[in-house]
């Protein structure tokens, strides 16, 4: 079987971010939307010690795949909520991976105490663009602010994924998923954030 054929059978989406960014909510939103769309979907999360400001990784596989773990080189799509974490997760990616990257750095405390330097963000994006088939880099925090709350940056990133059309999920399913997962008072701002991301994704699809 060719590699292309293997990939056609299913899609692996790897999420990476920092504790507090809403990475797990974004993952659930993709999973719930896939369920609404009637796709086979499996999500995996790491809890506990991994939080407390550390790296938060999660994964979704849709289609004809059953293993919940995304191994090295297996991510077809990477959603990175932070540029340093996008770079760190490169080993999950392969040459045909599409990445959506929020460009706003969250500098780890180790840098503040002098244990290492934060890489130049422009350099990070250039590395990603050199290695990956497609990189959509955007300031998700600015778009979320435009939508009404910087905390909705995670919905911007999910919106980009939806707009890119990488997962066979209709827009109505995405929107229903959002409404299922969030309390009514948060619908407006998150719907706007999702829509801004969706348009950004659609523009480069």
């Amino acid at each position, binding site marked *: 079987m060719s590699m292309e054929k293997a990939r056609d059978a299913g899609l692996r989406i790897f999420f990476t971010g920092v504790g507090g960014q809403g990475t797990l909510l974004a993952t659930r939103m993709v999973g719930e939307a896939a369920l609404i769309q009637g796709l086979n979907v499996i999500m995996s999360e790491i809890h506990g010690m991994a939080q407390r400001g550390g790296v938060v990784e999660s994964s979704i596989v849709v289609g004809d795949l059953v293993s919940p773990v995304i191994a090295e080189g297996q991510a077809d799509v990477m959603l990175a909520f932070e540029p340093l974490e996008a770079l760190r997760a490169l080993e999950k990616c392969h*040459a045909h991976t599409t990445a959506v990257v929020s460009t706003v750095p969250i500098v780890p405390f180790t840098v503040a105490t002098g244990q290492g330097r934060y890489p130049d963000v422009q350099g990070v994006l250039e590395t990603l663009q050199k290695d990956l088939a497609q990189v959509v880099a955007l300031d998700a925090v600015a778009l979320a602010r435009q939508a009404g709350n910087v905390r909705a940056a995670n919905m911007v990133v999910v919106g980009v994924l939806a707009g890119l059309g990488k997962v066979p999920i209709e827009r109505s399913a995405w929107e229903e998923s959002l409404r299922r997962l969030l309390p009514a008072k948060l619908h407006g701002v998150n719907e706007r954030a999702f829509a801004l991301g969706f348009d950004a994704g659609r523009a480069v699809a």
Partner: protein
Amino acid sequence: MHELLSPEKGGKRLLLGNEAIIRGALEANVRFVAAYPGTPSSEIIDGFARLGHEAGVEVEYSVNEKVSVESACAAAISGVRSLCSMKHVGLNVAADAFMTLAYVGVKAGMVIVTADDPSLHSSQNEQDNRFYAKMAHVPMLEPATPQEAKDMVQPAYEISERFRIPCLLRTTTRVNHCRGVVELGDLPSGSVQGDFQRDPFNLVVVPMVGRKLRLQLLEKEKQLQEVSESSPFNRVEGSGRWGIVTSGVSVLHVRDAVRELGIQDKVSVLSLGMTSPIPERLIGDFLQNVDRVMVVEELDPYLEEAVRNVAQKMGRSLTIAGKGPAGIPQAFELDSLKVQKALGRFFDVPVQAPAPLSAPQDLPARPPNLCPGCPHRATFYSIKKIFGEDAVYPTDIGCYTLGLLPPLQMADFLICMGSSVSTAGGFSRVLDRPVVAFIGDSTFFHSGMTGLVNAVTHDRNILLVIMDNGTTAMTGHQPHPGVSITPGGRKEPKVDVEQVVRGCGVQRVTVVNPLNVKKTQAALEEIKEDLKEGGVSVLISRSPCPLFERRALGIKQRVVFQVTDACDLCRDCLSQLGCPAFVWERDGAGGQCVRINETLCNGCAVCAQLCDAVKPKKLEA
């Protein structure tokens, strides 16, 4: 209504493995649930705590895992179906109860969920708890997916009840924390009345009873083997001559790996969902129909040894592979790529996986950290100031274990829950150095009290610091006996830590609020003097976890702190206190400054007590 109580039979939900286990237990009419939280099992007891009242289930946050098994087995022996859940190492704590409960057995079904953590995502070790089933001679089911986790609970109760023996449901992190589509079943209605029949010569394990029960247990195991031989969870797929034996989540890695290798037509896969007792005849029949076999399982060679054993008994000579440098790794969790590579080598099939890219090696690490405003940081800071580098600092399990990391580096020894105080006692007898041990409030109740009694009894010269943040913070803010912040507001604790400490025989007990740096350090100076007299001192360093307190009581933050121009760039805030709200900014031209990230600052004011350049700024109400 809680989502997991939906009466909609056939409805599909995206459930976490742990939620699926809750639903499965509810469908099986569980009525008594007891657990101590521990990743990756915590969502089970937390979910039950939320829906227990509505569902008519008695739910107990037990003081530790051993207590949870004892508590829940009393329900089961009285005819009420019960459940315990715990992380893998929790079963070590509960092992004393568990091993002999297997002898005495139960009347209504009892399921013990043991959640292994391959790759140590959130644990101190990775151990393979399947061997507990073998050691205790109890039945064990191993689900692969959330749906299977739900579907196995009902049969687990039926097996438990039929053979009057507790049943293990053994999961791994990738089952507990996997979310998948689960189809709901029926929820039963009606409560269950407990009924205890006096029967001391079967229920009170003195040696003569134990001897009888030992023989009965071995007999039960034989009968249970028949259940395993015909279990619908043990099945063969495919009819090729290349054999694969697997169980649990590895079933999923195998399925993807086989497909990506394109060898579906060449393999037969024996997927085992009931792995204790081992279905020896089923394995034997399988071995008859294959030319060689690879055993794919996480952690230790539990199935591999069983397969070799069966082959030897039946005199079947074929190549059996499993753990080994060219085979399946023994350490850390598997994935479909690791499995592809091992199967590819063993069956001599090329692996066509995409080449992984590589990340630069010198990226700054992002380890988990104590939160800004965490009172543990303030406690560590002051103790380091007074006791310095000379002291030995045994620590314990909780958020404060993160004191390990620079710049605090206040953790010297840890093996398990409660080891801080007991090892401190041992260190104090062989070292001529001060010994200061750290333990959290929840961990103190879990397994610190006995160590403290031991230290007092033997006049150990130690300072035990009980870092009392009023909750079980690391696993998600579960209650414990000493909590005073509850969903209904502040209350008197059921069990007061200070009284327990005094009750353990400690004469020198001091209580401080670590966020008051001056008073804390003054108290520590006195304690340091007192320790010269020998014996045990206890410092209760008490300040609630701010995340928990603010969420539970709806308290709004009123102030943040700022670094003013008076900053002389000494950077002690970074190199000694290490609060992650501090940022050291350097520009390319060599200019630098220290500032506080106001969105991270929690307003605890500890830094302002250490540095005159830090000033408060009131937040808008």
